[in-house]
């Protein structure tokens, strides 16, 4: 397509002076190229930022402050809560407290109003499927019996993905407003949520797992 076809046929050169116009448009074009570079690089930047944040969280997880937080049941948003290991997905990430955009910049976060790992009820954890380290990028690959391990300073909890239940598969897809997936359960469960389809926030993919083992951490 020729440029003439979509640029107005007004002689801007006569109106503003050819050199001034050329200079202004050049600056504008360079600015747009810079903007394009920023847009293209932003998803990768969030991955790098999440990797840096994970390093910091892994270091803080080793300190006694996390243990104190568990003993007092008091966590601030964005602080390290548990390590989550999913062997099938080759995932080992530190989950922070909170699911705000800021907290989830680290990759995965714990829904604040759900129980802590290992407690009775339904532990809720959300993780990015794209950008920000994308820890739950391949959540759809989990099947019945796959292990999800939550490691806290007090104990290590092993959950297993349960078979299909409630008339749907596991994993399954829900509406973003369907917070019922985080409803308390009679047994100790773990619910992971992430966005679906990949690269969109139109729906959520959910996986439910059941606590099957616990080992105290020395």
């Amino acid at each position, binding site marked *: 397509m020729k440029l003439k076809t979509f640029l107005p046929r007004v002689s801007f050169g006569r109106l503003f002076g050819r050199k001034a116009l050329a200079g202004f448009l050049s600056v504008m074009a360079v600015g747009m190229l810079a903007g394009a570079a920023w847009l293209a690089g932003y998803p990768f930047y969030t991955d790098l930022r999440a990797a840096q944040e994970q390093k910091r969280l892994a270091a803080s997880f080793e300190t006694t402050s996390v243990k104190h937080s568990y003993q007092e049941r008091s966590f601030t948003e964005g602080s390290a809560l548990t390590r989550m290991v999913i062997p099938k997905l080759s995932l080992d990430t530190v989950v922070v407290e909170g699911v705000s955009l800021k907290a989830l910049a680290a990759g995965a976060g714990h829904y604040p*109003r759900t129980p802590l790992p290992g407690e009775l009820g339904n532990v809720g954890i959300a993780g990015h499927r794209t950008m920000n380290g994308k820890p739950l990028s391949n959540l759809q690959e989990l099947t019945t019996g796959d292990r999800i391990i939550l490691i806290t300073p007090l104990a290590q909890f092993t959950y297993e993905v349960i078979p299909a239940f409630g008339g749907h598969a596991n994993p399954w897809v829900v509406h973003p407003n369907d917070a019922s997936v985080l409803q308390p359960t009679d047994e100790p469960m773990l619910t992971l949520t992430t966005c679906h389809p990949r690269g969109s926030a139109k729906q959520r993919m959910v996986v439910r797992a059941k606590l099957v083992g616990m080992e105290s951490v020395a």
Partner: protein
Amino acid sequence: MTIHALKGIGESEVGKKDGGILLRIAAADVRLAGDIATTEPPCCALATTGGPVYGYLAGAALMALLALALLAYVRRLRTTV
């Protein structure tokens, strides 16, 4: 306060021998620290965890094309008399 001690063996009461265990409570002092665990689910929506990667890349491509078109126009502007 209800204590379910040795459930299944027999009935437990203060001062009663139950399954070989004598349970006497002279005084009790309970202190709670921190917040009580709550299990209420979030009220409205599940967390947003899917950045629009393709949107960013498409936007970048569109912006780059526009910039190149603009640069081509500038070149024409400079060369034509």
